[in-house]
């Protein structure tokens, strides 16, 4: 075992892994993290704790991960390259490992421009860092773990033992480079991969065929991203505006139908769309897991963590295997 994390153990067992996502709040209140952790606990093998997603200031990934961990939910701390240089990154990694965290997902991070959206002012004028990129951050984690060395070469008496993850957008432009992109992350040391949300399963399968030809599915555990659709509007938005996501018209039509079936009743329209969205998510989970080379699913119910229990159960992925009770290190 590289890290001994629950997620690593599930993946090593060959059973399909399930990860979920927990978004920390925009305040110093730990209760929201606790509440969401309780909702997710038992229904996933580990939950990603986002790192200031869309560049919005929230409880830091590490702090929220430590809180979730105390609740018995195994976290995957996320680390973006946007906000820290290699000094801060490594300091945070040492700290996170000292707190008992065992999974880390590396990603570039959304540009700070996205923090000003809707009613949020955000910090679009912030300076971004990008001292290192995702591949390089993966390499730093690997070097720390496997060689007990900081990136600069100084020794680490106690190495942080992380199960190293990276994100992958299989279907974004330039699409023929995306398999190479994945290969670089794997060669840098990514033990597991979580993909961008997938709706267009046939296109994803085309990309996965290339990945299998390259043998990458054997070197890393690919967890297919499933974003639970909540409304027809959300699906349309994802299709038109989110990079690397295309939503087949048939899915949008299904959500539209669910919405229309409620007539003027807005509450009912919401409920029917949520029901249909849940159904779609379950179908996508099955299709993803039937795709050769896929080792699990990463289910994101954005600001809707309560949906995970039902989805995981209905998808036949419950109960989750228990390998070790995660215990807080304190």
């Amino acid at each position, binding site marked *: 075992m590289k890290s001994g994390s629950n997620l690593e153990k599930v993946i090593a067992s060959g059973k399909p892994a399930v990860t979920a996502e927990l978004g920390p709040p925009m305040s110093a209140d730990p209760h929201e993290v606790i509440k969401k952790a309780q909702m997710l606990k038992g229904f996933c093998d580990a939950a990603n704790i986002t790192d200031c997603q869309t560049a919005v200031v929230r409880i830091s990934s590490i702090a929220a991960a430590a809180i979730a961990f105390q609740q018995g939910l195994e976290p995957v701390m996320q680390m973006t*390259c*946007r906000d820290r240089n*290699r000094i801060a990154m490594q300091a945070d990694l040492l700290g996170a490992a000292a707190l008992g965290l065992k999974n880390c997902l590396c990603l*570039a*991070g*959304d*540009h700070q*421009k*996205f923090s000003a959206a809707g009613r949020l002012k955000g910090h679009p004028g912030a300076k*971004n860092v*990008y*001292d*290192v*990129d*995702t*591949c*390089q951050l993966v*390499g*730093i984690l690997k070097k720390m773990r496997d060689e007990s060395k900081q*990136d600069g070469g100084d020794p680490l008496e106690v190495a942080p033992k992380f199960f190293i993850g990276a*994100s*992958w*957008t299989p279907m*974004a*432009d*330039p699409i*023929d*480079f995306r398999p*190479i*992109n994945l*290969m*670089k992350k794997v*060669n*840098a040391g990514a033990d597991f991969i979580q993909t*961008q949300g997938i709706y267009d399963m046939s296109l994803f399968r085309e990309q996965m065929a290339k990945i299998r030809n390259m043998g990458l599915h054997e070197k890393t555990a690919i967890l297919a991203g499933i974003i639970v659709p909540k409304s027809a509007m959300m699906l349309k938005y994802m299709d038109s505006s989110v*990079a*690397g996501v295309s939503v087949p018209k048939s899915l949008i039509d299904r959500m539209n139908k669910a919405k229309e079936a409620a007539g003027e009743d807005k509450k009912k329209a919401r409920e029917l769309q949520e029901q249909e969205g849940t159904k779609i998510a379950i179908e996508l989970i099955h299709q993803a897991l039937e795709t050769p080379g896929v080792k699990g699913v990463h289910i994101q119910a954005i600001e809707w963590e309560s949906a995970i229990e039902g989805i995981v159960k209905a998808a036949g992925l419950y109960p989750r295997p228990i390998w070790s009770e995660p215990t807080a290190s304190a």
Partner: protein
Amino acid sequence: MIVGQQKPFDEIWGMVKGFKKVLVFGCNTCVAICHAGGEKEAETIASLIRMRAQQEGKQMTVNHLGVMRHCEPEYFDPVMDEVKKYDLVLSTACGVGVNFLSDRTGTIPVYPGINTSFYGAVEAPGLFKELCAGCGNCIVHMTGGICPIARCAKTLMNGPCGGTNKGKCEVGNEIDCAWYLIVERMKKLGTLEKLSEVLPPRNWATSRDGGPRRISLEHIREYEEKEAAKAGK
């Protein structure tokens, strides 16, 4: 070339209105090409200041001047006596020119008339694009001649982020994704496999992060010193 943009006139007025004798001093190289701070623009700004001063009933003498380059002393040395007659120089040279002149004007302040923006090129008449960030360690032989440091919003070294959308950067639809361009270009060059290698973290010490940089060409300095000594004899 260095590309800049004229500051909003109200900001310029805010800087100059407290002074009696103002010289608007243009530079006729890069910033003239981008229509920001050449002698012609300096002249326009000077007349705008005069008009505003008149409107507000202020007594001000405002003139303009331009030289070829603000980054080499021999170009402005001949006009330094003239420059020193003013109590403010509003330089419309790039930031280099503003600093360089400021180091040489004693008690006379030098204020910036333009916002120096980037190292770029003339993409089309009136359209300028950033192409290099002066990182001090050029690597574009590995990226199809396209710079990921200046042209990728995240200075990514190992390929595109997940935000590339139809060839455009996630930061804005008007910005080309550098990595999209790099991949397409390297496909054409038949060198795409070069991108398979993981580039390690960069040494940014050659860039701004190493502190202000200087380059010293010893052979030229020695030669100049010798010549100066000879002339002194």
